[in-house]
């Protein structure tokens, strides 16, 4: 999706005299990521979906072999592992964007941080879901209270749920950007602590990982690793553009209300 057109003023008309500049990010039209405006949304989507299609084809060609050796559910790792890695990447980027917001107060980075946090939450849900399916076949249980990775993602899910609730609760508050940035940083700082806490104080030993190593499998996994970030960057871009659109609509509505009052 391209950046929405500026509809706060009629085309070619300067803002009426006496009106304060009301565009929250006038002169600072950052996209979802650098050069986003040069890459059409459709092009990004085409690459992402082609990549996922290729990955699914590779996974499907592995299926007969996997079923013989371990079971089909093992194939879920091609979604689970790259989703988990992308999730941590998004957590990190969300905190980095938060640091930029605290340092500069930039609304562009605020929107990026917001979209990164929401996308990470969605990824987190996928990691938990695929992890549970995998755990059921590998270890025989849906939920293992001793697995540090599963529990770390569960705690992360709660933290980023809190992050999105904070964003929501402060929607009309000027302090929203800063507070959300602070919580994003706090949540990231907590992740290593959560990991070690569960590793050290978990109640049982972690079941051994299932490993299956053939050239096709490493090839599929590397395809998955490169396709996933591209796909989730697309999801992030979509979320980001929704937020940008909502912010712009808000600005236009505020302007209309002011004009209405002026007319009265």
């Amino acid at each position, binding site marked *: 999706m391209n950046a929405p057109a500026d509809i706060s003023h009629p085309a070619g008309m300067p803002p009426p005299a006496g009106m304060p500049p009301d565009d929250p990010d006038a002169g600072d039209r950052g996209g979802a990521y650098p050069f986003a405006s040069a890459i059409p949304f459709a092009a990004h989507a085409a690459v992402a979906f082609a990549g996922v299609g290729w990955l699914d084809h590779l996974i499907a060609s592995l299926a007969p072999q996997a079923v013989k050796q371990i079971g089909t559910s093992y194939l879920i790792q091609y979604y689970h592992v790259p989703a988990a890695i992308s999730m941590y990447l998004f957590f990190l980027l969300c905190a980095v964007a938060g640091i930029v917001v605290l340092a500069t107060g930039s609304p562009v980075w605020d929107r990026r941080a917001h979209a990164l946090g929401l996308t990470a939450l969605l990824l987190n849900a996928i990691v938990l879901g695929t992890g549970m399916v995998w755990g059921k076949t590998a270890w025989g249980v849906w939920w293992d209270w001793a697995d540090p990775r599963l529990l770390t993602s569960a705690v992360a899910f709660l933290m980023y749920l809190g992050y999105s609730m904070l964003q929501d*609760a402060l929607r009309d508050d000027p302090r929203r950007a800063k507070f959300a940035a602070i919580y994003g*940083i706090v949540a990231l700082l907590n992740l290593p*602590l959560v990991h070690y806490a569960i590793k050290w104080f978990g109640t049982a030993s972690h079941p051994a990982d299932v490993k299956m190593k053939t050239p096709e499998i490493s090839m599929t996994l590397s395809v998955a690793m490169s396709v996933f970030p591209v796909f989730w960057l697309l999801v992030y871009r979509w979320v980001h553009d929704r937020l940008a659109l909502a912010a712009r609509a808000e600005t236009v509505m505020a302007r209309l209300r002011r004009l209405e009052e002026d007319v009265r």
Partner: protein
Amino acid sequence: MTGWRAFSTVVRWDVAREMRRRSTLAAMAATALVVLFVLSFAVDARRADDPRIRAGLLWVTWILAGAVGAERAFRGGRDAMTDGFLLAPIPRASLFWGRTVSTFLFTTAMSALSIPVFLVLFDASVPSAGLAWLAAVSLLALLGMSALGVLLASMTSSVRGGDVLLRLLMLPVLLPAVAAAVTGTGQLLGGQDPGIRPAALLLAFDLTFLGAGHLLFDHAAEDRT
């Protein structure tokens, strides 16, 4: 006013106000009492002889009561002190440290008050051998909880529905400290040696959130209305 003097002023102000009104401590102690009673009904107190479960019940009580304390760190009625402080050219971090220390003192007092109730209700006893360790683990966990609570409460206190939001934000972040504290306390109540790990993790937790508070509090307390 230097940072150190500002810090000690905040602590003395908070303690003096608490000595006069006793509102925070009363609220925390009442919460602890209610939670302990509910838990002793919910978990048959006579049969909860697994020390880890007992430790878990004790820490659930302290966390819920501690959240009440953190919530009140920035909401003691009209707080001229906080507002004046934020206007003055004093490093904001000293307000964070002062509030953290005073909240830590109140939380520790609440914990100390609730231990006898816990021991009676759950017919438990603390082995004297591990007493120093138990105190160390508890104090480390309560310090981290206070630091995190003060940092988050400085943001949520001025928001509508902020008390609910504070718990939503605080409890997941608190989980590693809870895991370490419950494990350590449980092993000590069971007469085992918990080793260095619970204390090490709690120390890391404290350093992380005291550091984060020191650096981020400036932004959290800005534009407070």
